[in-house]
């Protein structure tokens, strides 16, 4: 692989910062502190520029130039106005105006998510739990699928019982809730293993970067590689 001097410097810095962040595994140290502050500072700056060029510029400046009709202008002016309201926090005497923008944001998002959650996490999940029963049979290898459907139904019911808050988990009811928490823990265990596997693959990718690119860049910089 041919490497330019500037490319080698970039890869060297990326690898060095990776190791600086990894050094936190030993303990907090000045090298980690430097990488941390650099990371926070550059990322905060990056997001500022990103928002200017990808949110403000296309949605306000460009959109204003292309707008036609009352509603097109209205759709630009209202969000900008709410944004200006947020800036009112900088003036203590009228800082209360910023609450309007916050109230709009919180109220709108919560209201909107109710419909989404209701549809996807409640109603469609009811459909998904019931759907195996529509084709249930105990012949030609259907027994396993049938047992699976019944287990899923019982697991859903017991997990729902666990999430009842207005009744103490005691007696028979408590036993069902305990089954519910077992169901949740089995699910979490499976999810844990799956995610850890993905994390290990990320670590492997980073170690490969250090071995195959960073090390090559160092050799290039000290004149031992191409």
């Amino acid at each position: 692989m041919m490497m330019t001097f500037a490319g080698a410097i970039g890869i060297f810095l990326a690898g060095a910062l990776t190791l600086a962040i990894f050094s936190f595994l030993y303990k907090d140290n000045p090298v980690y502190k430097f990488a941390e502050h650099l990371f926070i500072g550059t990322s905060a700056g990056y997001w500022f520029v990103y928002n200017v060029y990808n949110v403000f510029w296309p949605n306000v400046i460009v959109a204003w130039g292309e707008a036609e009709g009352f509603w097109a202008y209205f759709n630009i002016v209202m969000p900008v106005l709410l944004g200006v309201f947020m800036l009112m926090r900088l003036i203590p005497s009228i800082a209360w105006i910023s609450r309007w923008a916050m109230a709009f944001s919180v109220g709108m998002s919560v209201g909107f998510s109710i419909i989404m959650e209701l549809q996807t996490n409640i109603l469609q999940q009811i459909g998904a739990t019931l759907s195996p029963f529509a084709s249930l049979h105990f012949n030609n290898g259907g027994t396993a699928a049938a047992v699976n459907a019944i287990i899923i139904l019982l697991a859903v019911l017991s997990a729902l019982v666990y999430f009842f808050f207005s009744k103490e988990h005691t007696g028979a009811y408590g036993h069902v809730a305990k089954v519910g928490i077992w169901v949740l823990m089995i699910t979490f265990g499976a999810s844990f293993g799956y995610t850890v596997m993905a994390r290990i693959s990320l670590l492997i990718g980073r170690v490969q970067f250090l071995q195959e690119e960073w090390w090559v860049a160092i050799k290039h910089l000290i004149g031992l590689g191409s």
Partner: protein
Amino acid sequence: MKRLLVILLFLSVIPFSLQAQEGEAIFIAEDVKYDSGGSINLIWTVPDLEQNLILEIFRVFGETEGKIIQTPDASGRFTDRNLDYKGSYYYVLRAVNPEGEIFQEWTTETIIPAAAWFDWSKLIVLIALVIIFALITHYIKAAKRGVEFTIRKIPALESVDEAIGRATEMGKPILFVPGIMDIDDVQTVAGIIILGEVASKTAAYDAILNVPVSRSMVMSTARETVKESYLKAGRPDAFNENMIHYLTDDQFGYVSGVDGIMAREKPAAIFMLGTFYAESLILAETGNSIGAIQIAGTAMPSQLPFFIAACDYTLIGEELYAASAYLSHQPHMLGALKGQDMAKLLIMVILIIGTILTLLFPELGIVELFANIG
């Protein structure tokens, strides 16, 4: 009655009228149902299309005609979008050879891609919403009338006082992490509500509160919430808006910052309540390594295992939303919680009855009612 029979007869004839006679081409344009307007579905079938011919579909709007697609497929489906929802359109399907000579031509009827006021495919969502709303409203009203509702013990929330008390005794700060998402995320809202309750206690105990955030809107909302809590606790003098401070929007930049705070300030109690993604284990492990008492909560199923493994107490899923009622013990919140419990009971009843009906009468389409929404 006679009129009803005529309508039924008419409706029963429609499907047959849409089917082509054998060998006859079909080219239909139909308005996309229940949309916000401006979309038309085109369906075509041209039997025995000669191999050297291709199909071209033209949209005609007023005097303007424009080609929208060209395909060698003898049958297919295409949705023409971004049309004027008040405009009248018709479409022309032409079978042409590579030189552009037209061999045959079919035309649809004129159609308006109208906007629908109501999406009937989501009727069940409205019904469910009305029922849940009615249940919650009923129990809130009951709570306001003085009916007392109990709430079962949630160990993670029982330990909030213990965690804050421990931090106060040790003279160490309390770190509150409200997740990495913005205020438009309902879990962040739940986290901020709990922050208000935690802030009431830190104000009362005169403990040090530190809230690093990753979103500007969360910062503003959290500052307002904490300020109000300090005011209510009669300690406005103890409020300092720098308690809630912005780090960065970047996920891992934020994590490195919070990890640094944990390592340097060594908080005695850490609350992680909100939406978390890949950073959950990094934060929880760092908190664990400094010996802090950790109370976490999220409704992200993929991150809960990490919190359960590395934290002292974890609020699982809906427990996060129940926390504000639990901590505040305000009647209207307890009433809302009772209403939600009743909604869950209703869901269980639907599941049991739905299973029985699906097993006995699969033709009723109970599954489709819930599975095919929107």
